[in-house]
């Protein structure tokens, strides 16, 4: 009966126990794996992670492309010299170009020849017309230094002083529209991402409730042997986080594989006209480092969210029981 006070083992007993250590396999999880609708939840989480990764990367692609477009456009401006009564347009164009070149920050001022200006009208007026009789405006394309952009107000004032009929277009309206479009695309992707995560949260919540109901007896026994709610919730959280991680890895891995495959196909398709257009619009269709990071973060976030949600739901359930 000496065992009744369960004293610490003697040295001899301890060595016996060490020898026995290999007989003791890792402790079983308190929430059995087969009591949770694991496979279906992993599939749902994998699909949701894949879709969320897709939405996030499309948003990144559009945002990056928009930054490139806006950067390209913002580094350029156009001066339009309109024919005016009593003025010699060639002299006005030369004077305007010279004034622009003198302005700090302007790297290049390229004058479009008469023929080039007329060529710009061809898409609207058609080919084979004699435009020499029309008062066609002339264009000067300005390119700015990257670090030292000019003061547009000063540019305008100078232009107005030299050639009153010239107009400076700094493309700000177009840039703003591009920015709005990019922001709308990113917001839409973010909204889709939120919807996907919300749907996933509902699936996790439902699976957790089912798991708690299935394991009601285990919860009861754990309570009766003195387990605190936090301990029980942690056991469920551990189980669900493992499932979430599995689903997220499958979904995230699938998304990475998708982008690698898409990049390969895009390279094959690039030789076609359509491929070139798409590449001109959105850049190279590939997984950028930020896109890869987004998928990794998303997968980690999905696993953490799954664990956290299950914990909160179990705690709330136990609190109600209490």
């Amino acid at each position, binding site marked *: 009966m000496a065992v009744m006070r369960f004293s610490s083992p003697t040295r001899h007993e301890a060595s016996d126990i060490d020898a026995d250590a290999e007989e003791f396999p890792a402790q*079983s999880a308190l929430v059995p794996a087969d009591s949770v609708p694991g496979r279906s939840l992993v599939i749902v989480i994998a699909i949701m992670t894949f879709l969320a990764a897709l939405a996030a990367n499309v948003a990144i692609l559009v945002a990056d492309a928009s930054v490139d477009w806006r950067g390209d456009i913002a580094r350029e401006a156009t001066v339009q010299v309109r024919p005016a009564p009593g003025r010699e347009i060639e002299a006005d164009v030369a004077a305007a170009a010279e004034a622009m070149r003198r302005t700090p920050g302007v790297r290049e001022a390229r004058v479009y020849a008469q023929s080039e200006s007329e060529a710009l009208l061809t898409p609207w007026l058609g080919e084979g017309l004699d435009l020499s009789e029309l008062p066609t405006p002339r264009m000067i394309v300005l390119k700015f230094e990257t670090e030292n952009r000019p003061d547009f107000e000063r540019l305008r004032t100078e232009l107005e002083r030299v050639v009153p009929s010239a107009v400076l277009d700094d493309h700000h309206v177009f840039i703003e529209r591009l920015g709005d479009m990019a922001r709308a695309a990113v917001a839409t992707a973010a909204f889709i991402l939120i919807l996907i995560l919300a749907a996933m949260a509902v699936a996790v919540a439902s699976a957790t409730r089912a798991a708690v109901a299935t394991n009601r007896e285990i919860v009861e026994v754990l309570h009766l042997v003195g387990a605190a709610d936090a301990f029980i919730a942690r056991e469920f959280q551990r189980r669900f986080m493992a499932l979430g991680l599995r689903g997220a890895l499958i979904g995230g891995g699938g998304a990475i594989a998708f982008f690698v495959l898409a990049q390969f196909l895009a390279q094959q398709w690039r030789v076609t006209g359509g491929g070139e257009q798409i590449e001109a619009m959105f850049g190279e269709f590939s997984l950028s480092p930020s896109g890869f990071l987004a998928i990794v973060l998303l997968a980690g976030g999905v696993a953490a969210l799954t664990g956290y949600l299950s914990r909160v739901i179990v705690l709330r359930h136990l609190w109600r029981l209490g």
Partner: protein
Amino acid sequence: MLSFENVGLRYGVGAETLRDINFQIAPRSFQFLTGPSGAGKTTLMRLIIMALRPTRGLINIFGKDTAALSNEEVAETRRGLGVVFQDFRLLDHLTLYENVALPLRVLGREESSYRAEVTELLRWVGLGERAHACPTILSGGEKQRAAIARALISQPKLLLADEPTGNVDPTLARRILRLFVELHKAGTAVIIATHDLTLMDQYEEARRLVLADGRLHIFE
């Protein structure tokens, strides 16, 4: 250590199952809780372990009013109780070793820190060779002994056993009773719910709490 004052319990709108229950359990005391089947022994045990709330009256455990305890405090208070359930309540997906170790595991103790205690206790109840078996393949008697081991492993201040000898042969029943008596002598208060008169006759020094018609009668 445990007191009931005017405790009553009714399920739904029916008559009270337990009426005006008054008793105290002193530290290091030993009592049998008895009465005919359906008298409410298990219900009374469930009130003690806070698995049921009384309809009226006051239950005080270890100096705390159970009605005022938070979930966390209930868990903490239960750690001072060792309970042997009539239906064992072993978890089928855990081995016997893991079942017995459960009260220590929920305390957050490292497995290596209690391996010796659990192994020794399993050997003592005659289940040393079955440590890694799951309850589903055990006999009723083996489950009973595992349930007793689980109740004892955390060295509770108060041990409650609901029909602990209901599934064992007379020899093992005597051995289990001796174990409870030994525990009592070592300082644990013991309440054994049973209707086994032979078992009670083997330890006549014990108090007898007799439940009949929803009321409790105490024989010192």
